[in-house]
């Protein structure tokens, strides 16, 4: 396995990988916040757990969509 040299890291592929990482970071923070808030809300109002869970999944899926945009762009850069 070759180590990634500085030259490689500054090419499009390296930057694409970096971009994918940053996107994953953003999505991770977003989904973490959604999950945290959802748990808090369920703890406060357990009878609404079903509705909160459905909305949590929906919002998480929307955040994930943004991350996947970045992933697809990254993949396109790597493959071309």
């Amino acid at each position, binding site marked *: 396995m070759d180590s990634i040299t500085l030259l490689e890291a500054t090419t499009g592929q390296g930057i694409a990988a970096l971009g994918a990482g940053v996107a994953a970071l953003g999505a991770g923070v977003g989904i973490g916040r959604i999950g945290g808030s959802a748990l808090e809300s369920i703890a406060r109002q357990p009878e*609404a757990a079903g509705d909160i869970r459905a909305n949590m*999944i929906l919002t998480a*899926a929307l955040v*994930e*969509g943004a991350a996947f*945009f970045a*992933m*697809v762009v990254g993949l396109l850069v790597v493959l071309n």
Partner: protein
Amino acid sequence: MRSNAIFARLALFISTLLIPALTFAYEPEEKEHKANADTAVHRGEMGNGGEESAKFNPGEMIMDHIADEHGWHLWGHTTVPLPVILKTDKGFEFFSSGNLVDEHHNPQVYQGTHYAYALEHGHIKIVTDLGGGQFEVNEEASKHVLDFSITKNVVTLFVVVLILCLVMFSVAKAYKRNPGQAPRGLQSFIEPLVIFVRDDVARPSIGHKYEKFMPYLLTVFFFILIANLLGLVPIMPGGANFTGNIAVPLVLATITFVITLINSNGHYWRHIFAMPGVPVGVLVILTPIEILGVFLRPFVLMIRLFANISAGHIIALAFYSLIFTFAKGGESPVAGYGVSIVTVLFTVFMMFMELLVAFLQAYVFTLLSAIYFGSAVEEHHGDHDHAEDFDGKPNQHGPATINA
């Protein structure tokens, strides 16, 4: 007793996960053949072809396996040939994809009725004979070729439709046979899902007009669910990256888009072109965004399903390629065997995640489709703003009152 049965099932499940790991054991050698094969057509022009390095390339292997292909690769050199249907400018061509590779898995030129064909990077191209066993890809003629072949993904599509028909017709028949009785067998599996789509997806998001959209929502839900689950089965007829092929989510999202447009009312378009109660200065910015949003929503719907399922396949393949990366193409077998244990454990974990994702993506696609339909058929409820509008709907028409 019961825990024994569960253990046995778990063992069976894990052993099915081992199958791909075993079949992949032939992969590096295979790759070498393929790499040679891809250049075989150009060999004539380049003089000495086939000088491809045997170094294992994970990226290439992964992209190769998530792509569609002519013929279904099972293991080693065993491939199930699939029919090729081409529409050229001179007429249709039918032949087996087995004609495009020789017994050593190398691509070869097939002389059809109208042209000669060869595989180049998974695509069928027209080639012209230069004489002396040398061929050149005819790009000009290849442009006019329309490929209607029954590829790996098309076979998967047929299998999904077949399963869908078998399951749904047998369940529907069961309801006719014993109406008003407790569900039995497959009914007990399908009924909660249908009720889930109706009560948790369609009714809260669409409102009282939900019944019109139920056939589409249920079809798309079960189609995506079965296709996703089939993609997790490592052996034929599963394992194809079907919902992870951009064409499939594209068609599904387009259908959602068209249904939204057909059912959209004046209220929907007014909210897009001139959001009520918004100053003109803001409208200048808001309206282009809203118009863009009309097209962006189905686009994101497509990307989400495509990327989620592709990512699942890529992760599994990346774990497998760890084995070959560590084994260094047979130089250090001990490292390869050692890593394979970790790989199998990781893959089992990821497969459980993927089971969740398979269901979740079917749910999210259906839910978002329902929400788009809901926004299209939503009616004016007076002068109150959006938040109230949205909250009021399920209470008004739905059976479950949230504030009860």
